[in-house]
């Protein structure tokens, strides 16, 4: 019988939540790496027992943990992330040049075919690759040395590369997103990159339609439709039908188009989910009502999903990597909050239940669907 394993990264450790396919009775293990910030935990599509976790702290820096038994035991892997050559500078918050400094890994993206191949998106923004199961890391430096890079600026959370999407149809094509530089695409396995931000409009930058400088919060793609990308930008939900060449806004009737995560239904490539957040100065749901919004039309037309979610006095946030879907039928939707709840909808968003109520603030949620 199928089952699901939910990998949760929090401010104070990692947790592994497991259930059978009914998704109504859960076991909880953790905290793993108690007391450390766990920005992301993700399993390999090629070997679900292989899981990578980003463990970090302001005191002791970056640790990479690797599990080969589905998250039961963990072994520290390589944590040496060194920028290639002279790191150069990007703009600091005050507009002055600031040297690139490694802070942490925000996101791991294991390759589809080989459990030993994994990409890491880091702060200050860069992409690294390991081909030996995270023992050693090499930067793909063409992104950080892109001619626009000296103009990149950090968002409030740091200048992080938080999204990596490996095109399932084209092994050379990689999409990434950086706050607050924008989205970039490589068509040659990371040897070269170009911004893909045409159509984005951001009123917080001097040139609202500039090539770079947009605070992209998250990208999502359905694997059956790799030319269609969805984006939650700082403000605006966007869609591209040409692999990022152009974007159009699909915020439609959303009550606010600010938010962080965006994800796609496992079996319906035009069904997408966002969590509208009031504003960039008030990082919580409107009117204290936690509502996921679903579009079955790939954007523009949205419906609120509230059944089982708190509809009063709820002032949590849902961060960019804290939403995921499973591969079961019906598709399960998951998200975690800064209030420590992890919610599941086992029926594509119709009803919701809290798997756990009181974890530390949730930074990331990933789901593995196990045979």
């Amino acid at each position: 019988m199928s089952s699901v394993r939910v990998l949760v990264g929090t401010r104070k450790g990692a947790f592994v939540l497991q259930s059978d396919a009914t998704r109504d009775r859960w076991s909880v293990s953790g905290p793993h790496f108690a007391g450390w910030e766990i920005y992301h935990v993700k399993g390999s599509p090629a070997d679900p027992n292989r899981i990578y976790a980003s463990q970090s702290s302001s005191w002791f820096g970056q640790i990479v943990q690797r599990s080969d038994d589905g998250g039961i035991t963990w072994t520290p892997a390589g944590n040496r992330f060194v920028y290639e050559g002279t790191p150069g500078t990007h703009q600091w918050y005050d507009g002055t040049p600031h040297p690139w400094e490694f802070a942490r890994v925000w996101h791991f993206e294991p390759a589809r075919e080989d459990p030993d191949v994994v990409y890491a998106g880091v702060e200050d923004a860069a992409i690294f690759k390991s081909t030996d199961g995270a023992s050693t890391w090499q930067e793909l430096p063409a992104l950080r040395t892109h001619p626009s890079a000296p103009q990149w600026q950090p968002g409030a959370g740091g200048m992080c590369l938080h999204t990596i999407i490996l095109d399932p149809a084209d092994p050379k094509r990689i999409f990434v997103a950086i706050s607050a530089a924008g989205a970039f695409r490589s068509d040659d396995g990371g040897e070269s990159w170009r911004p893909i931000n045409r159509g984005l409009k951001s009123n917080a930058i001097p040139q609202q339609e500039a090539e770079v400088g947009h605070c992209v919060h998250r990208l999502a793609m359905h694997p059956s439709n790799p030319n269609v990308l969805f984006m939650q930008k700082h403000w605006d939900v966007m869609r591209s039908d040409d692999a990022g060449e152009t974007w159009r806004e699909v915020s439609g009737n959303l009550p606010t188009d600010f938010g962080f995560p965006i994800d796609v239904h496992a079996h319906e490539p035009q069904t997408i989910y966002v969590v509208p957040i009031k504003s960039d100065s008030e990082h919580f749901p409107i009117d204290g009502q936690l509502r996921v919004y679903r579009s079955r039309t790939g954007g523009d037309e949205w419906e609120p999903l509230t059944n089982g979610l708190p509809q009063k006095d709820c002032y949590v946030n849902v961060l960019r990597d804290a939403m995921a879907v499973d591969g079961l039928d019906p598709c399960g939707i998951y998200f975690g909050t800064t209030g420590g709840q992890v919610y599941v909808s086992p029926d594509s968003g119709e009803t919701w239940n809290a798997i756990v109520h009181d974890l530390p603030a949730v930074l990331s949620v990933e789901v593995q669907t196990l045979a």
Partner: protein
Amino acid sequence: MIRVVLPAHLRALARLNGEVHLELEGQVTQRALLDALESRYPVLRGTIRDHTTQKRRAYVRFFACERDLSHERPDVPLPIEVVNGAEPFLVVGAMAGG
């Protein structure tokens, strides 16, 4: 024998209990001590000093003999009490919070 006391998070990471005991040849400096520590526990590389610059991480402090040695140059000899094991070399996570 040199005694090193690590903070709880680093003891957990290195999977050790209590003090670390090191035997060093030659002049005992902060650099030599940390080199020996990282050699025995490679998982600690990058957690106390930066991988590349070898500079102390900002929120890590070094104390010994009731003195703050954090700002000493790494090749300055450590106090004799540390060298002969009378006093431990303390690696401390700086206080922070609110």
